[in-house]
């Protein structure tokens, strides 16, 4: 979609800056800490690159800033513009209101599934196949939602868009990291 090399450069820049900031804070980190830092900085770098335009980036930032432990680090990484981003993220009210929807949906699903089980025997094959396909899709959508950050609260269309974006981001991240390790 977008130019991958441009994204790469952007990501690399931000990541390096973030890493530097992190390491300046704490010089002697053990490997686990470093790992965490690396991941966190990469995530935040990319998320900030999106500037809060995509939902998954906002979710990433929100997750990162939620824990107090991470918060300081994250804010450091994000730098001066972090305040703006954090504000933008926090103003997203989607999580709470969607939870109710999800709960009600689950209740509905459970009640429907029990009804479907009863009907299954009497139903012709085509309908059955349709049902099965639908269920498969539902399950997989659910899994995908768990994979994409912030995806649980999205509807399907936005989920697909976010997935697209997220995949592009992951690719860039992998490429950059790989080249980092090999250079």
């Amino acid at each position: 979609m977008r130019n991958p090399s441009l994204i790469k450069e952007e990501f690399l820049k931000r990541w390096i800056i973030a890493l530097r900031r992190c390491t300046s804070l704490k010089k002697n980190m053990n490997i686990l800490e470093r790992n965490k830092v690396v991941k966190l900085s990469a995530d935040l770098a990319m998320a900030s690159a999106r500037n809060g335009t995509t939902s998954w980036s906002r979710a990433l930032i929100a997750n990162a800033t939620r824990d107090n432990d991470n918060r300081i680090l994250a804010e450091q990484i994000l730098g001066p513009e972090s305040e703006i981003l954090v504000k933008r993220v926090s103003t997203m009210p989607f999580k709470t209101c969607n939870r109710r929807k999800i709960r009600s949906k689950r209740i509905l699903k459970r009640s429907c599934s029990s009804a479907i089980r009863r009907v299954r025997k009497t139903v012709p094959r085509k309908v059955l196949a349709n049902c099965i396909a639908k269920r498969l899709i539902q399950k997989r959508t659910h899994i995908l939602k768990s994979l994409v950050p912030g995806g649980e609260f999205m509807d399907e269309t936005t989920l697909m868009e976010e997935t697209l974006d997220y995949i592009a981001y992951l690719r860039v991240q992998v490429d950059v990291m790989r080249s980092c390790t090999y250079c």
Partner: protein
Amino acid sequence: MDMGGKDKFELENRNEDPMNYAPRASDFGFGVANLANTSIGMMPTENPMAVSKGDLIGSSSCSSTSLVQSFGPTLWEHRTNSENLGFGEVSVQKIQSTSDAFGIRKGDSVSFRTFDKTFDMSWNPTSSTLKGDIFSPNAPVMLHQRLPPFPADSAFIERAARFSCFNGGNFNDMVNPFTIPESMSLYSGGGGMIQGTQEAFAGNSLKPVSGAHSQENELGVGEASKDVSLPVEHGATEGSPLKNERNSHSLMGSRDEAKQGIGGSGNDSDEAEFSGAGDQDEPSLLEDASWEPCGLDSKKRKRNGQGTKIDIAKGAPQKSGESAKDNTEIQQKGNRNQASTTNRNSGKQGKQGSQTSDPPKEEYIHVRARRGQATNSHSLAERVRREKISERMKFLHDLVPGCSKVTGKAVMLDEIINYVQSLQRQVEFLSMKLATVNPRLDLNVEGLLAKDTLPSRVATSSTMGFSPNIPMVYPLLRPSQRGLNQAGLPGMGSSSDLLQRTINSHLTTVIGGFKDPTQLSNVWDDELHNVIQMSYGICAPPNSQEADGSLPPGKMKVEL
């Protein structure tokens, strides 16, 4: 729009018996179905008989006969392959011909009134004969083409034909349209004035109107004129901005939404009010316009086999058109509705109900309620939603490797999930690797940039000399790359400089004690290089470098 042309071709390719003409006629959509066509169409069909019988029509005025005569030869000329759709049919072949006939037509508007009467008189006797004659020679249909300016649209003509075919004597309704020529005459300003007339009508008739017949007639005229214009592809020239908007909508964007078939509009009522026929086009156009803003409106536009009403938003004219009066017509409408399900890019047409005729090839995408499906907003919105999703899946096809053969949502989702999971795992793994390989988490920016710009992996031990300020500590070079450093320098220079500068600017506040590591970096460099030389494998370096990584801090402590 190409629609008109396509419609014509469709019509031409069909063989129908009078029963089926309705579907075909519906396909006209905006075909050049003129009042004139219907009225004159009947006339010419009659004329051969009439002439033989004594020229009933010509009695009204000699001009009429001349008209007929003038039309006759022309029609015969042009009439090559149009099918005989019945006298109601509008062979929408050549719109240009209409313009030719226009000049003639104008003057003869008066004569049409007389034609009405003559039709009345001669209708029944000639209808049967006409039918027989119509289907064979296809001549009378040709006349339609040349009878331009009358804004009767195909739907109207269908209806007219229907009336003649099915309701033998139900002529009152038929007559109504013929009064339109009067109004036509009022508006028509001159030759080739279709657009002008349309504009006039459009201005008058676009707004929702009460069910007043005259109003409807006017609207119908306006609509019909619209119809004429549309096939002529004068969409842009349509007077009303609304029309333009609609056209633009339809042309640009309403691909997402299925428009209710123009055939549907053609299906519109049986009413003798051909205004309904005219209205159909407008509603359909309006549908497009209103479609864009909210897809949910589509539900209202859907027509089931029962001919559900058109959206109120479209305006009264539609409503008037909608009231189906004739059961047979309703049936036909239903058939046509089902049949004329408009094209959908997503190819859902196939699922739609019985298709006796090809769907009209219109430029808009119509969201249609399929036969037997609910027409409420939910299902329609759902369908729109599904389309969006499938659209995005197509994008994902490109992103996710190895998905070219995959079709179907479930499998595609599976692939996507696998891919995302694998990417996430890779990121995790690489970050771990970086964390171990790179104890101080410094990155070789120049090396990375070089990789982007140059295919060879020119790492940058040379960067050390490059910009001593920058704490680019230890380039994790591959030994093979060292030789390339010098060669790679000039190439990398600019990009790495830029990057360094940007990073410098960011880091000036933070750097502080960064200069210390440079001293140590040399020490580490050697160790790391050794490690790297030992094994390029993934597993090996972490182990070895862990040990190494632990050393330097110790060294640092000692030194400090």
